[in-house]
C-alpha cells in the first residue's frame, strides 16, 4: 500500500493510492460553543438542492446531538468500536505535540481505517474498514428530537410549549456536520469504478453520477457516513460543497468565491469556510493571514473531527468548553486541552479573528489586524479580561477589502415610550 503523509496523525500512513493534492483545499471551521441546533444550515442545504425531479434527496448537511445522537445513528461509536476490535488496546496517541516536527497533535500510533483493513479484511479488494448502516439507522436524522408529537389526533401542530421534547439529564452538545472533503477520502479509496474524484482546483470530493452504479462501497467506507445511497436514482450522492458558489459562478458573487449555503445561512455565526494553500506533502502551507490557517495552525483552537480515522478531514471544530475532556480527546485528538484553554482566554488577535465569522458570504482569503486603544478592563468569572478597540479587516480573492469590524463604545437607545425623558 502506498505511503502518504498525514500531518494530523504526525506520521506517514498507508493509503490505497499515491498522494495527489489540489492547488487549494476546501476547508472549514465550526465553533461548537455557539451552535444551538436551530437547523437553519440543514434547511438551507435541503432548500438549495432538492427542487427538481431526481434531486429529492440532495440533502447532506445535518446537526446532531452528542453523545446520544448521530446520523446515521451511532456512526462514530460503531467505527471506533470496529477499530478497537481490529487493534485492541493500541489505538493511542504518543509523542508530545511539536509543530517543529510537523506533529501539531503528537503522533498517532494506532491503526487508521485503511491500515486496519489491510490487516484484518479479506479479500484484498476490501480496502477500507467500515460498515453499511441498515435503513433503520438512517430513518431519523435527529431521532427522538426531530418529531415532537402534538396532541393525539391533532395534525400539523407542534406541542405548544415543546415540553414533550426529550430531556438530556447530562452534558451534551450539537455537532454540525457536512462532508469533510478529506485529503485521503475513504469513499474515493473504496469505489471499485473510480467514480469518485477530488477536484484538482479546490479539493472538493465529488461522485460522477454517470459512472456510479450504486454499489455502496463508498457508503460502507466513509467513516463519517456522508456518502448516501439514493434508491430513486440508484446511485450514491454526497455533499458537493455548493461548488458553483465556491467557483464564484453564483450570480450574486461577482466572480468572487462564495461560502456554501450552509455556511452563509448560519444564524449562530458558528461557521467559516475557505480555501487553503497546501505544501507538496499535503500539509498546509504557511499563510499566516488566512483566518483558517490562523485558527488551525497558529491559535490552534480548531481541531479535526476524529483525526485517528486517517482520512485527514478538512472540517475543523472549536471544541465545546463544557464537555468532559476524555470525550473530547477521543473526538478531536490530543489538542483539545490547549484549544479550550486558548479559546476561553482569547488574546487580542484571536478575539478579532472570531469576529470574521459570518460577516460576509464571500470567502475570506486574508485578514489584517490593527491594534487600537484599550476600552475595557475587568474580570469575568475570575479571569482578567481586557478589551481593545481593535480593527480586523477581511479581504477577498481579488485582494480587495470585503469588510472591517471595529469595537465601538456602547450606544444606548432610549426606549420609545421614554423618548423625551431626561
Amino acid at each position: 500500500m502506498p505511503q502518504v503523509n498525514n500531518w494530523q496523525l504526525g506520521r506517514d500512513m498507508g493509503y490505497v493510492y499515491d498522494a495527489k493534492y489540489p492547488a487549494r483545499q476546501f476547508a472549514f471551521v465550526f465553533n461548537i460553543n455557539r451552535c444551538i441546533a436551530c437547523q437553519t444550515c440543514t434547511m438551507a442545504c435541503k432548500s438549495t438542492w432538492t427542487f427538481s425531479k431526481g434531486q429529492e434527496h440532495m440533502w447532506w448537511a445535518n446537526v446532531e446531538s452528542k453523545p446520544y445522537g448521530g446520523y446515521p445513528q451511532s456512526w462514530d461509536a460503531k467505527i471506533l468500536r470496529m477499530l478497537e476490535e481490529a487493534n485492541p488496546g493500541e489505538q493511542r496517541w504518543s509523542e508530545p505535540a511539536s509543530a517543529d516536527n510537523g506533529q501539531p497533535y503528537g503522533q498517532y500510533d494506532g491503526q487508521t481505517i485503511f491500515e486496519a483493513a489491510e490487516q484484518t479484511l479479506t479479500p484484498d479488494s476490501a480496502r477500507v474498514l467500515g460498515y453499511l448502516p441498515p435503513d433503520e439507522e438512517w430513518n431519523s436524522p435527529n431521532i427522538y428530537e426531530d418529531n415532537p408529537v402534538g396532541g393525539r389526533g391533532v395534525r400539523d401542530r407542534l406541542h405548544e410549549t415543546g415540553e414533550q421534547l426529550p430531556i438530556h439529564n447530562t452534558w451534551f452538545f450539537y455537532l454540525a456536520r457536512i462532508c469533510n472533503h478529506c485529503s485521503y477520502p475513504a469513499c474515493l479509496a473504496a469505489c471499485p469504478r473510480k467514480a469518485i474524484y477530488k477536484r484538482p482546483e479546490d479539493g472538493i470530493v465529488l461522485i460522477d453520477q454517470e459512472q456510479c452504479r450504486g454499489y455502496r462501497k463508498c457508503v460502507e467506507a466513509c467513516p463519517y457516513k456522508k456518502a448516501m445511497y439514493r434508491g430513486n436514482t440508484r446511485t450514491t450522492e454526497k455533499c458537493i460543497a455548493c461548488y458553483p458558489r465556491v467557483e464564484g459562478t453564483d450570480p450574486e458573487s461577482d466572480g468572487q468565491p462564495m461560502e456554501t449555503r450552509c455556511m452563509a445561512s448560519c444564524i449562530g455565526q458558528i461557521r467559516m469556510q475557505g480555501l487553503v494553500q497546501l505544501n507538496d506533502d499535503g500539509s498546509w502551507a504557511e499563510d499566516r493571514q488566512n483566518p483558517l490557517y490562523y485558527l488551525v495552525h497558529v491559535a490552534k483552537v480548531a481541531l479535526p473531527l476524529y483525526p485517528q480515522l486517517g482520512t485527514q478531514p478538512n472540517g475543523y471544530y472549536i471544541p465545546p468548553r463544557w464537555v468532559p475532556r476524555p470525550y473530547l480527546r477521543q473526538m478531536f485528538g490530543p489538542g483539545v486541552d490547549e484549544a479550550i484553554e486558548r479559546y476561553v482566554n482569547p488574546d487580542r488577535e484571536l478575539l478579532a479573528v472570531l469576529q470574521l465569522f459570518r460577516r460576509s458570504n464571500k470567502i475570506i482569503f486574508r485578514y489584517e489586524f490593527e491594534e487600537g486603544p484599550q476600552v475595557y478592563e475587568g474580570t469575568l468569572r475570575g479571569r482578567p479580561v481586557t478589551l481593545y478597540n481593535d480593527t480586523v479587516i477581511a479581504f477577498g480573492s481579488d485582494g480587495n477589502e470585503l469588510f472591517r469590524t471595529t469595537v465601538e463604545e456602547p450606544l444606548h437607545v432610549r426606549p420609545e415610550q421614554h423618548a423625551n425623558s431626561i
Partner: protein
Amino acid sequence: MPYDEPEPDDPQVLVGVTVPGDAESAREMAAAFADEFARMGFGRRQILALFRSPRYAGAHDALARLGDVEVARVVDESLGVWGQVRLAVEDAPTAPGSAADAGPVDSGRFLKVLK
C-alpha cells in the same frame, strides 16, 4: 417521538447510558451560550429568551437545572464584560456595476442560470 410505549423488541428504542459528567457542566454550558451571544451583540432580554425557549434544548436544559435566578446571574456576568462594547461591521464600498451594486438578485434570474 412515538405516541405509544415501544414494543419490547423494538430495535429503534434508545438505551439510556449514564455519561459521566461534571456537576459544573450545566453552569459552564450556560456561561458558554451567554458569553457567545453577548459577544454577538445580543441583549439581556434576547439571551434570556433563548434560554426560555424549549426548542433550544441545550440552553433550556441549563435553565431547567440551574433556575431562573442563576441563569440571569450568569447572563449578567457575561453582559458585564461583553455588553460594555458593541461591534461595528462596515462593508467595503460596492464597486460600480457589480452584482451587489445592482441590488438583490431576483430568484427568476438565479433559476435561469441553473437551467
